[in-house]
């Protein structure tokens, strides 16, 4: 904790972070969280007063991609501020101590900060064969997860693997891997899927928690709506080409060079919810579709099995009957526009429902019938 009477903003000031940079950071967070501007004052005020809560980060059957991702936190000052916002006391990939000293750091938090700390979990948890497929300090992942997450104020599952087992749980799931929510039911949890998670979103969740004392509104998968409430396809910068029937037909062809729609190359954008096109990656530099490759729908449930093969066109195109061969779509301009209109309608409905704090269906099978209901 900070010394008595010292606020975060004064602590930041003492460490060379100016008030202006602090407000800039808060402003970026408000935008990412899709909060109305009037909340900026509240975020600034709340963070300015915060005492540093403790955070621990556990890695199980992981690739550390989510850890690496957070190191690339997109806003120039985000990591700096995160280190000052929270006391980040356990994270194997970057912490100073190892072995006994690392174990002691974790145990201190579990015992002394019981019920008050946040835990981030990265990687799947293997349940087969007594959990022997992942041990840390001789203890199984499930044993550690139960203890550490069970005693936390809230858990944040980052990346596909911590959400639903991800790649590790893809068929035939050799190690019986599951996500955190299934491994340790009943905990307060928010899921931040993606392969990896986008650090801008994860940081935004932390800020939301520090500001309002609760996790942000989520869908039925406990994913925050601000990041997972809209279709990629609706936010895509290539959308106009889709609507106009201009498609990449071969890698490197004219359409590919001119930034046309990647639907025919297997893009899963029409079935994927995530805020990639807006938040982008690596200081908002780019995202996969901008860089020339289709979306994998990496924030969708069990995407490794349900969205692959990744180069196969989506069998059912929004706005078309299932019988329409995909190859004809580019030729049917009117149809495409009609499909787009329906999609927009659905997206608005999703947004409206999101505002009403009800939860939109995950990866909805978009078709005209659904639209009529919405």
């Amino acid at each position, binding site marked *: *904790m*900070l010394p008595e009477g010292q606020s975060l903003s004064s602590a930041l000031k*003492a460490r*060379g972070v100016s008030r202006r940079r602090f407000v800039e950071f808060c402003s970026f967070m408000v935008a990412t969280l899709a909060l109305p501007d009037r909340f900026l004052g509240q975020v600034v005020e709340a963070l300015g007063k915060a005492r540093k809560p*403790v955070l621990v980060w556990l890695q199980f059957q*992981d*690739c*550390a*991609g*989510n850890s*690496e*991702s957070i*190191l690339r936190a997109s806003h120039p000052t985000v*990591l*700096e501020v995160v280190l000052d916002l*929270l006391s*980040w*006391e356990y994270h194997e*990939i*970057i912490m*100073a101590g*190892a072995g*006994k*000293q*690392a174990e002691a750091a974790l145990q201190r938090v579990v015992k002394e900060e019981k019920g008050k700390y946040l835990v981030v979990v990265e990687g799947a948890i*293997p349940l*087969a*064969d*007594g959990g*022997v*497929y*992942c*041990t*840390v*300090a*001789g203890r199984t992942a499930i044993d550690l997860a139960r203890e550490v997450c069970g005693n936390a104020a809230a858990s944040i599952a980052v990346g596909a693997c911590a959400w639903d087992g991800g*790649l*590790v749980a893809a068929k035939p*799931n*050799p*190690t*019986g891997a599951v996500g955190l929510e299934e491994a340790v039911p009943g905990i307060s949890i928010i899921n931040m899927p993606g*392969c990896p998670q986008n650090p801008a979103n994860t940081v935004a969740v932390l800020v939301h928690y520090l500001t309002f004392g609760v996790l942000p509104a989520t869908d039925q998968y406990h994913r925050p709506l601000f990041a997972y409430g809209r279709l990629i396809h609706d936010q895509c910068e290539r959308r106009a080409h889709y609507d106009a029937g201009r498609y990449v037909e071969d*890698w*490197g062809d004219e359409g590919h060079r001119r*930034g046309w729609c990647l639907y025919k190359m297997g893009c899963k954008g029409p079935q994927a919810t995530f805020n990639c096109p807006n938040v982008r*990656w*690596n*200081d908002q*530099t*780019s*995202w*996969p*579709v901008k*860089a*020339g490759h289709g979306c*994998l729908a990496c924030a969708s449930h069990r995407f490794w099995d349900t969205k*692959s*093969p*990744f180069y196969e066109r989506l069998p059912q195109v929004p706005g078309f009957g299932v019988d329409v061969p995909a190859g004809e779509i580019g030729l049917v301009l009117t149809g495409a526009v009609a499909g787009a209109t329906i999609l927009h309608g659905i997206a608005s409905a999703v947004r409206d429902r999101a505002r009403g704090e009800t939860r939109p269906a995950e990866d909805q099978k978009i078709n005209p019938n659904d639209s009529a209901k919405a």
Partner: protein
Amino acid sequence: MARIVVDPVTRIEGHLRIEAQVEGGSVTDAWSSGTMFRGIEIILRGRDPREAWIWTQRICGVCTTVHALASVRAVEDALGIEVPPNAELIRNIIASTQYVQDHVIHFYHLHALDWVDVTLALKADPAKTSQLAESISNWPKSSRAYFKAIQDRVKGLVESKQLSLFSSGYWGHPAYHLPPEANLLAVAHYIEALEFQREFIRIHAVLGGKNPHLQTYLVGGMASAMDPNEPHAPINPERITFLSEIAKTAQTFVEQVYIPDVLAVAGFYRDWFGRGEGLGNFLSYGDYPQAGIHDTSRYFLPRGAILGRDLTKVHPVDPAQVSEYVTHSWYEYSGGDSAGKNPYDGETNPKYTGPKPPFEHLDVEEKYSWLKSPRFVDTPMEVGPLSRMLVAYASGNAEVKELVNGVLSKLNAPPTALFSTLGRIAARALETQLMARQVPKWIDELNQNLNHGDLRVHNGEKWDPATWPKSAQGWGFHEAPRGSLGHWVQIEDRAIKNYQCVVPTTWNAGPRDAKGQRGAYEAALLKTPIADPDRPVEILRTIHSFDPCLACAVHVTNAQGRRFAEVQVR
């Protein structure tokens, strides 16, 4: 005497456990164990080989991109596909960018705290720190005021009593030898390096859409379409300018911050030029093709092996000479566990026979790791930057010789000093310098092609699986930042029949083989002095000098389709 256990080994990727026997103040024997297993190669079976790279890239998020590259090369090798020169260049830019970014993170964020006592920075005189900084480099951030501000930041952290990631460090350990001023300098550069890597990796965002886990590889080339006249082309003149600007920053940072810091730290720890040697055998597949994958003579980093520390001879390397043992690994071979197998015959039946968790010690006489033991002509090998620099040095590569000799003369050390813990650190830094020089050159070549109208990024002749033979097999490789990486793929009826990866950290961190030959970590830890068995920072120094990546290292192919339910826990 005492059996020391370090688990978790932190500041690495993944789950590594070291057990070491310590007698008379030094390590007399050591065992390295990988304690996590996912089975990614099993999951790959039956899937589309064209997307194997998407899956295998997730083997590791620290060495993101490296498995993607090895994978597309394996499938291209199997199907006889040659990629256009632009794809080769884009891949080289991505891979060399990865070297620079990964090596910088390794030195500052994964390794430095073994040598730097953060708390001692509080005792530094900022004015003297400024003098020290200016005596070793022209880097502009070197004023007294700058170091005072950094020191105040550390002070604020310490006074808050919430030391965050630094709370568990070995502060005050007698093995720390840097003066307070050097500690303060290192802390400042720890923070600057975080900023540097975040900016520099935007090269990957442009060429790969995002980092970690780039998304623009294709079997046959890259999805980064190029056009000199299209504002929305993934590669166009505006993007090239952006890439060039960022690439320049790397050369400056590496030459003015990283290299001087390594030299300064090494100067205070010269004992470590004589410690942590290990095997004395070094392997490099070579990489960075510049005239197609088949012309190994034009690789920017040469292929070869050095045996028994003999730098006068570079042995040829053929992937057929690679085999893997499971004698001390939690797998079993149908023909018995005492013979090695080439990855094409890769057969791995997982069988956990370790202690039931929670446990205190592994049974190191039997099987004790999820890593297998790769061997080259039945010999354990070290892989990584030191191996690559030694192979290049011994092969007579002029640029590498100049860099290596320059550093050795500055440190007043003989070439044999490189066979050590500090040697690995120095070789990694030199390689970073070499590649930081190279990134802008390859971007420039790409730009020339763009301007001359060569816009090919993909060879689509074999994109359609209908064009493939009924069965095919291939080998793909990459010299990843941590060392020699190989992917072996077998394709049948347009699907993956068998897939196997032999990964850098498996070479380095693997357990003993059938002959009882130690792996590289195990050998390197012998004779390591341990001042305080409760705080074995010396073990971390040598292990970290290899830059372990355990997520990469643990893998399996299950050619026999054995059910995992048969795994026994005892």
